[in-house]
């Protein structure tokens, strides 16, 4: 049993940087996208102002979209590099893989049973079903928003390859997927990661890359056991991150949470004032 002060390394520097890039670009695209969608309202114009009006906001939106797609392509390469190519299928079906497996279905039902007080809390391995869902939701979101975003990037050009009326369709798909992503991230994701009783006041795992050993044993017990059995636990133990960094994560994190909630509240408050079609 590791000492209480010890922490378990959960995310590599690469994984944390992917997440950080995603956070920054997601907010940038959310702000510029909402600015354009709400440009008829004072709130929309306020959001667009830092970018120099709607033209600037749209330009940032387009460039950020391209950067995000490029990062996504890089991420696919990175993911392929994570696979143990000596026996890829065994690795993909293993506990370090983010592939959905039958065990995740069991994990989900056990989790549900625990919520209703019928069963014990599941002892997850490295990734729980909801963490895998969060990961793949980004993929599916990217597919939908990315493809429609590329269609909308230059409508005159894209209408050379498809009927122009598909732009009407693409815009609606783009909007609804993007709005759903924002609502999900700013409510469910923020709540589950930061405001759940066990996560309060702020869960910096994705930022400093570590979790307290006690939390690891509760939330990822099977993983801790596996590391111990494989003799890899010691290598995964890391010291507390510096206090200055933790304060920075805390303040930065809360600023972004506040920004997300601000976007959500004003988007709903102003929805009647915009022309959507």
């Amino acid at each position, binding site marked *: 049993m590791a000492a209480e002060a010890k922490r378990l390394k959960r995310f590599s520097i690469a994984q944390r940087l992917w997440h950080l890039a995603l956070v920054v670009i997601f907010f940038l695209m959310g702000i510029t996208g909402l600015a*354009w969608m709400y*440009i*008829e309202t004072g709130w929309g114009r306020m959001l667009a102002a830092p970018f120099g009006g*709607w033209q600037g906001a749209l330009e940032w939106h387009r460039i950020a979209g391209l950067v995000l797609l490029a990062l996504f392509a890089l991420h696919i390469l990175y993911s392929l590099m994570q696979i143990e190519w000596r026996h890829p299928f065994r690795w993909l079906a293993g506990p370090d893989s983010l592939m959905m497996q039958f065990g995740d279905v069991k994990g989900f039902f056990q*989790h549900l049973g*625990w*919520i*209703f*007080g019928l069963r*014990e*809390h599941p*002892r997850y391995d490295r990734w729980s079903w909801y963490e895998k869902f969060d990961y793949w*939701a980004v993929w599916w979101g990217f597919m939908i928003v990315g493809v429609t975003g590329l269609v909308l990037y230059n*409508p*005159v050009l894209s*209408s*050379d390859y*498809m*009927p*122009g*009326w*598909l*732009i*009407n*369709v693409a815009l*609606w*798909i783009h909007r*609804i*997927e993007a*709005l*759903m992503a924002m*609502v*999900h991230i700013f*409510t*469910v994701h923020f*709540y*589950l990661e930061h*405001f*759940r*009783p*066990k996560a309060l006041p702020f869960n910096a795992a994705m930022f400093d890359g570590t979790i307290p050993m006690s939390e690891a*044993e*509760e939330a990822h*017990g099977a993983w801790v056991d596996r590391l111990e059995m494989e003799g890899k636990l010691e290598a995964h133990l890391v010291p507390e991150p510096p206090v200055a960094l933790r304060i920075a994560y805390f303040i930065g994190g809360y600023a972004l949470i506040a920004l997300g909630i601000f976007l959500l509240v004003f988007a709903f408050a102003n929805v009647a004032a*915009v*022309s*959507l*079609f």
Partner: protein
Amino acid sequence: MLIRLIVRAAILALLFVQPLAAQTAPPTESNLKGSGYFRDQDTLPGSYRLYLQQPSKLDWLSSVGPVQEKVKKSSFTTDAHEGVANYSPRRQCTECHTNHSRDLHVSRMEVRCTQCHRDTPIAGIYHYYSAMNPIRRHAYVCAKCHEGATPSFASYVVHEPNPLAMETRESFPALFYATWFMVILAGGVLAFFVPLAVLWGLREFISVVRGRFSHGS
């Protein structure tokens, strides 16, 4: 002599038979395609597709694209408002065309009706010489702002219907089904996760209050 007679007879037969055949044969898609000229089908009210172009791999898509259900007779006239009793060029267009006041072109770009439909007398959009006529709309109207606009580009529906309205299922099936699919997907995801998160939080709260984690560690 006989050969000459046969040739003349053949030419005469061709001259008479060909146009007769053309007049009686029902219009097919192939003889409309790419003609660039107006035929009866183009100038009379009825149901037909706006853009008939070279066949492409994407032709199957047109079956779910926007459909012009009924075209008003006035859409083919020099002055679309001819005979409209309370019409006056001084009135706001949207006083009567109420459903056209919230289009993105108007609400975001402040495009005025007359920038596309031109000045009074406003010709019907299918009038032979109208700038809005589909044969030249892309070049005369869309391309004013959207440089390089093509007929395909011009099939963008400016006066977009409410995508969730039941009428849109008939008038623009692709928009209707795609939007409903996305609404159900988004609603489904949130309907699943929001209650789950709330219950999960409550359960954890109970655990915390009881001071132990329920799997007995």
